């Protein structure tokens, strides 16, 4: 197994190289660069000399292959470069946001799993009863409702309810506090966006759990388990659930990877400085170094997620063995 993991990790090197080349070329294919935006963007006048100065400073006048070499060689020297816009080290820019995005993605995934697995099971076991219809309506609503809208409703709801019950309106804190400093404050801020995105994300997982479990419950080995006289609880939990989790694990994990960089609008609603927001800003500002590193980060997250999915497969299903 460890040999397989090592093999897989080595195989990611070409993937990463390809991704690096692609994002490098794409960024440069788009007209304009960070210097033009900085000098002309505010409506001020700037001459060619200033532009050249700026480009020289940022290394944008160097030949393309050399620029690419600077980008890639950074991984061997541990230097990820500086943001072209702020001048701060990229590692620092990303580091702050990464913590928040990671935490939010984990919490949203936890919310999704807590909702999806039990509801999916109930829905499958009580197939075609009013409970099943209720669960399905609830999860369809989750797919239909955009999470930023749900986020706004949550904030408004909190304001109205706290006003009505306690007399003082309360809304989640706006400033990010690390969970290691003040866990309660941190939770008070992040639980709401986690619920808003987790609900949406649970919807697909609930339906997946339901349909996968329904399929497994028709299998011969479930009939065998019934014929053994086992409790229904044991039949579901021990015999059916493990067999039905493969597709559920896949979508939950892929969704997790997506959340790491894709929560642009929800971050906006809750005023969170996450990776999504940073991503949009970096692209709009033509901040080549920052965008490149962000893309590489997302690529690494997806690669690791896929590896995690494969390992989970082997853990859930003994027929799957890698060598």
């Amino acid at each position: 197994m460890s040999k397989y993991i090592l093999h897989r990790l080595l195989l990611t090197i070409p993937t990463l190289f390809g991704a690096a080349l692609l994002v490098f070329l794409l960024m440069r294919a788009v007209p304009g660069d960070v210097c033009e935006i900085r000098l002309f963007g505010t409506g001020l006048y700037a001459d060619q000399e200033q532009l050249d100065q700026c480009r020289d400073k940022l290394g944008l006048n160097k030949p393309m292959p050399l620029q690419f070499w600077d980008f890639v060689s950074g991984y061997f020297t541990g230097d990820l470069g500086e943001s072209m816009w702020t001048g701060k080290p990229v590692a620092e820019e990303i580091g702050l946001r990464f913590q928040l995005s990671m935490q939010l993605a984990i919490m949203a995934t936890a919310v999704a799993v807590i909702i999806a697995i039990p509801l999916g099971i109930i829905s499958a076991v009580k197939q075609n009863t009013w409970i099943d219809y209720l669960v399905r309506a609830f999860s369809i609503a989750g797919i239909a409702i955009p999470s930023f809208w749900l986020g706004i409703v949550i904030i408004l709801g909190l304001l109205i309810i706290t006003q009505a019950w306690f007399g003082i309106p309360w809304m989640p804190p706006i400033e990010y506090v690390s969970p290691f400093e003040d866990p309660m404050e941190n939770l008070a801020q992040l639980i709401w966006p986690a619920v808003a995105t987790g609900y949406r994300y649970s919807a697909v997982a609930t339906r997946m759990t339901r349909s996968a479990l329904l399929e497994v419950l028709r299998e011969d080995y479930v009939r065998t388990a019934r014929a053994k006289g086992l409790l229904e609880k044991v039949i579901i939990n021990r015999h059916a659930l493990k067999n039905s989790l493969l597709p559920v694990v896949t979508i939950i994990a892929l969704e997790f990877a997506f959340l790491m960089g894709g929560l642009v609008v929800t971050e906006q609603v809750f005023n969170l400085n996450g990776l999504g927001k940073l991503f949009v800003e970096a692209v709009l500002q033509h901040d080549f170094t920052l965008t490149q590193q962000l893309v590489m980060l997302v690529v690494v997250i997806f690669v690791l997620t896929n590896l995690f999915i494969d390992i989970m497969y082997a853990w859930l299903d003994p027929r799957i063995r890698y060598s």
Partner: protein
Amino acid sequence: MPKLLEVEDLRTQFYTTEGVVKAVDGITYSVDEGETVAIVGESGCGKSVGAMSVLRLIPNPPGQIVGGQIRFQGRDLLTLDDAEIRKVRGHKIAMVFQEPMTSLNPVLSIGTQLTETMMHHLGTTQQEADRRAVELLGMVGIGEPERRLKQYPHHFSGGMRQRVMIALALSCEPRLIIADEPTTALDVTIQAQILELMRDLTKRMGVALIIITHNLGVVARYAERVIVMYAGKIVETGTSEQIYHNPRHPYTIGLLNSVPRMDLHRGKRLVPIEGQPPDLTRLPPGCAYRPRCRWAIADCDRAVPPLAEVADGQLSACLRRAELDASMRDAS
């Protein structure tokens, strides 16, 4: 000797978009302690449904047991609540299914699947159950049982898996095992081994066995009594001897003529039964076998012929049972 299992007028139906399927339509039979009984018939004649009904394993919906009694050790299984029927399943009555390839859970080890039943029904500890599981695997002829217990179903061949299923069925020392086409999915050479094994073990442990099959050839060697079913009804029952050498129902005769036999008519061609089994949602009036029967007479479609005794312990549901003796059969 008291009857172990008495099935009386059992009726199981399925509600489909095509209409109501009377899969089992009023069957009555009994099984003695330690006896081996075969239930024989073509696919779709209701033999599996009848067996699954005994343990109430018919999925509902679409199926439902609509009438009758199933008395096991004097208690009617159809009146038990869920908790009580669970105490019978796997404990007093165990099942062996047709598909060994899919009847074991692929993600649980053989050991887990064997021991969980014993721990559930007998309250044994894990260690005791493990020890007993090793013993059971040895009994059903699986080598290196300690190592095999840790393995998963995909490490076993079809025949081996069926041996595991048999070990599983025997694990709680049941009084009755219902084997639903236990060898149909296996190679012919393995079939004989599995049947021998089941016969030896059930005889040794005094367990009664209901063996469901479409192969009359299987029956002769392993069963004491035979029940022949057609279109959800019993058409003939008797000892293996009687059914083999003196069948008194045209359907039984048809079945016998369609399997190769070593004991008579060497070199004779096999005669298949013409036509198809009837559509159970639209049974013709009278005898369901009439459209395929070469001995049918006008009276056959008037009413369903009842089972009546033709010899000591042999019952046939044919109006012409008295005429259907050997001379008439051979003339056909």
